């Protein structure tokens, strides 16, 4: 097993026929490589801007399109789908052809795939800063772009499966299994999580509400990490580490076990993002158990990657490709140990909503995804240009900048996250919160935020060095658009049928994909069937009523500005939280929340019980300039909401759409909605005016205040007067 390549195929099944000549498509690989480098720089740059905004809140102030809440999803989407996404396609297009001994199925499909994907990225880069977002993490793009994503993804899958079907090698190497699993699972996740009902061209409401929406969203987001940021990179690992080390994978048997157990287990673990929330307990426990079990396959994969280098560690010293791979695979091991630990409820109570999770995520994203992406580029670019890497020394500089950057990023986040969480939970001997003002815990973190920004800068600097090195490499060579190769056509199947059944399966990509699909579907079904029953079983809270039209508009502004990126709406049943925020959140409170806005990070305090906590005038002053009410706050101001008139053109459509989704607005209420909206806005503006604040009732800020003041208040209102708007018969059909 440790012998090098090009053995005369000891397990060959029959005598090969005459060799055919064909050409590997390097042109698509090059396009995706350029896109990876370019979008990588953009993603890192936007990340740096948001990191510096937390240190210097006055950076790029008062520009709606560049506010923190809108840039954060741009950063995450750019990092995941633009940088890592294009890197995946680099790896797949390069290795799949060579493993199949066939050119990509169709040059036209390759082109549609490439340009379609870049179009999606450009549309995301335009719509997210403009505030068009569903607010569901890593699925923020609005419905027309979702449809485009589906189409382009199908093209990718079609091209990939077509290539596999036309291959000249009977057996599919384990990398191809990981690629097929990626295609099948991401298709399912994307379609199920993006089910939404449009209100307009760039506005929609999630089909699911509250607890169900949260479960679907985190099933999606967790598995997007699994099947977008993990499986394709594992496939690349199983190809590029052996190639770069020039020795076969440590254990092919282990890679088979790794594959099946990983794809089977991963899909179940999503609920670990929702521990201590209003999600049913059994689903939380299921998520925890499967997360712990995930350590085994994850570490099996890591060990398999690292042990491939046994006896070849001298090459790691010389090769930047292998250095990036080794640190990347090690970071994968650390992150996949950390993940299950974070899904233990006691650990989760400490770390969830804090910067610890940001550190955890970036350990994976920067070291594992970033490391493998750059390793692939360093491996592939010299080869498709028929030359050598321009400078191994510069690649080493890049490696060290990146590695130090990751450390300077992650360690301050770990320290900061735990520090802040302990401050949140600290009580005085008298039983009160030691730090009742949330801001005290934020101010303590600013040095950590500064260090993190420095770490990110190092990583960015390394990436720039890397891109320069790759550019000079390309300049020094001559691009080979079609690399000539020779292989005999696929030999006929063995007539006596004496192949092992798994080997038969490996030679049938379509059946293989179907089985993979079934494996991931089982986890989804067992999780979803009981939760689908939850809808009719969530205890009815009679006082919980649908939002008024003005509150809906305010909620949509909350979504537009990305408030959910920094504020959760989920008070966990922990003493420190109920003491700070109020009664813990109940599943029945979210039955009309399309989409749910529980959030996953508390850069600012939880807002689920903020309704009625401050007067309208406080919000009016705070939202314009948060430091006016909260000195040293790092929250940005939203002055444009005081100048912009509320767009009420979709009020009717929103009521109709929400009713279709099951929110019990009475029939015909849409005709009354605008009147109610204006009346409620006039009441709020009138109150503000009496307090000496010149507020026009038609401004956006009034709608936002209406929504914030409604949050979490239904529970404590007597059912009879719950959620009655200022006038009119609205929401009379509320409840269940």
């Amino acid at each position, binding site marked *: 097993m440790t012998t090098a390549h090009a053995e005369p195929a000891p397990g060959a099944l029959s005598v090969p026929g005459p060799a055919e000549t064909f050409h590997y498509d390097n042109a698509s690989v090059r396009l995706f490589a350029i896109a990876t480098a370019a979008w990588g720089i953009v993603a890192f740059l936007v990340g740096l801007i948001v990191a510096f905004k937390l240190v210097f809140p006055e950076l790029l102030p008062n520009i709606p399109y560049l506010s923190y809440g809108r840039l954060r999803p741009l950063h995450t989407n750019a990092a995941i789908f633009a940088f890592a996404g294009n890197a995946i396609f680099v790896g797949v297009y390069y290795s799949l052809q060579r493993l199949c001994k066939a050119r990509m199925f169709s040059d036209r499909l390759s082109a549609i795939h490439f340009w379609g994907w870049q179009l999606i990225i450009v549309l995301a880069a335009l719509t997210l800063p403009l505030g068009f977002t569903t607010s569901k993490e890593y699925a923020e793009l609005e419905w027309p772009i979702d449809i485009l994503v589906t189409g382009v993804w199908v093209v990718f899958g079609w091209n990939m499966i077509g290539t596999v079907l036309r291959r000249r090698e009977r057996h599919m190497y384990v990398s191809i299994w990981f690629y097929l699993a990626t295609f099948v699972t991401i298709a399912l996740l994307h379609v199920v999580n993006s089910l939404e009902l449009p209100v307009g061209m760039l506005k929609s409401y999630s089909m699911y509400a509250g607890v169900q929406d949260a479960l679907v969203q985190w099933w999606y987001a967790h598995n997007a990490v699994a099947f977008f940021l993990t499986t394709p990179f594992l496939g690349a690992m199983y190809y590029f580490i052996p190639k770069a080390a020039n020795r076969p994978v440590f254990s092919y048997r282990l890679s088979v076990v790794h594959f099946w157990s990983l794809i089977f287990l991963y899909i179940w673990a999503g609920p670990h993002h929702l521990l201590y929330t209003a999600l049913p307990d059994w689903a939380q426990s299921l998520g925890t158990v499967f997360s712990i079990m995930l350590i085994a396959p994850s570490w099996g994969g890591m060990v398999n990657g690292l042990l491939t280098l046994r006896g070849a560690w001298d090459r790691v010293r010389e090769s930047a490709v292998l250095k990036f791979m080794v640190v990347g695979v090690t970071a994968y091991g650390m992150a996949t140990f950390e993940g299950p630990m974070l899904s233990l409820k006691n650990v989760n109570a400490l770390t969830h909503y804090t910067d610890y999770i940001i550190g955890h995520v970036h350990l994976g994203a920067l070291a594992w995804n970033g490391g493998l992406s750059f390793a692939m580029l360093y491996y592939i670019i010299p080869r498709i240009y028929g030359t050598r*890497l321009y400078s191994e020394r510069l690649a080493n500089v890049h490696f060290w900048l990146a590695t130090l950057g990751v450390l300077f990023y992650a360690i301050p986040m770990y320290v900061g996250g735990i520090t802040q969480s302990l401050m949140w939970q600290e009580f005085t001997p008298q039983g009160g919160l030691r730090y009742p003002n949330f801001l005290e815990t934020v101010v303590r973190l600013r040095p950590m935020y500064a260090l993190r920004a420095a770490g990110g800068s190092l990583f960015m600097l390394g990436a720039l060095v890397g891109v320069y090195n790759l550019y000079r490499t390309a300049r020094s060579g001559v691009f080979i658009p079609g690399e000539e190769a020779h292989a005999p056509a696929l030999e006929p199947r063995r007539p006596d049928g004496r192949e092992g059944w798994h080997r038969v399966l490996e030679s049938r990509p379509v059946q293989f994909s179907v089985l993979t699909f079934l494996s991931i579907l089982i986890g989804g079904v067992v999780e979803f069937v*009981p939760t689908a029953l939850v809808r009719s079983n969530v205890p009815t809270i009679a006082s919980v009523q649908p939002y008024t039209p003005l509150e809906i508009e305010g909620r949509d502004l909350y979504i537009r500005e990305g408030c959910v990126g920094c504020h959760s709406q989920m008070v966990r049943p922990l003493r420190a939280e109920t003491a700070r925020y109020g009664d813990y959140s109940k599943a029945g409170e979210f039955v009309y929340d399309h989409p749910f806005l529980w959030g996953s990070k508390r850069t600012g305090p939880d807002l689920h019980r903020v309704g009625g906590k401050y007067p309208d005038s406080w919000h009016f002053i705070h939202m314009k300039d948060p430091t006016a009410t909260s000195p040293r706050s790092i929250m940005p101001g939203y002055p444009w909401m005081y100048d912009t008139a509320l767009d009420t053109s979709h009020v009717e459509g929103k009521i109709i759409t929400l009713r279709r989704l099951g929110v019990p607005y009475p029939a015909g209420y849409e005709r009354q909605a605008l009147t109610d909206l204006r009346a409620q806005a006039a009441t709020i503006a009138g109150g503000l005016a009496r307090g000496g604040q010149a507020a026009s009732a038609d401004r956006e800020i009034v709608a936002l205040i209406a929504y914030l003041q409604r949050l979490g208040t239904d529970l404590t209102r007597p059912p009879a007067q719950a959620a009655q708007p200022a006038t009119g018969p609205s929401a009379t059909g509320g409840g269940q």
Partner: protein
Amino acid sequence: MHKEILQSIVGVQVFPVISLVLFVLVFAVVLVMVSRMSRAAVERLSGLPFDDGAGSPDDRGER
């Protein structure tokens, strides 16, 4: 409240059990399967990345 939700779903206890049984079954089948792979087959499969028909030296370029 969680208990109320759980009790109102008939037979909810069976779901976590189904998941565990399914996983153990899949895992066992995979283990049996790989243990029955022949050494020759394993060597051939793990050698696939090195046989791409391009005839180029594998370590070209990066040193």
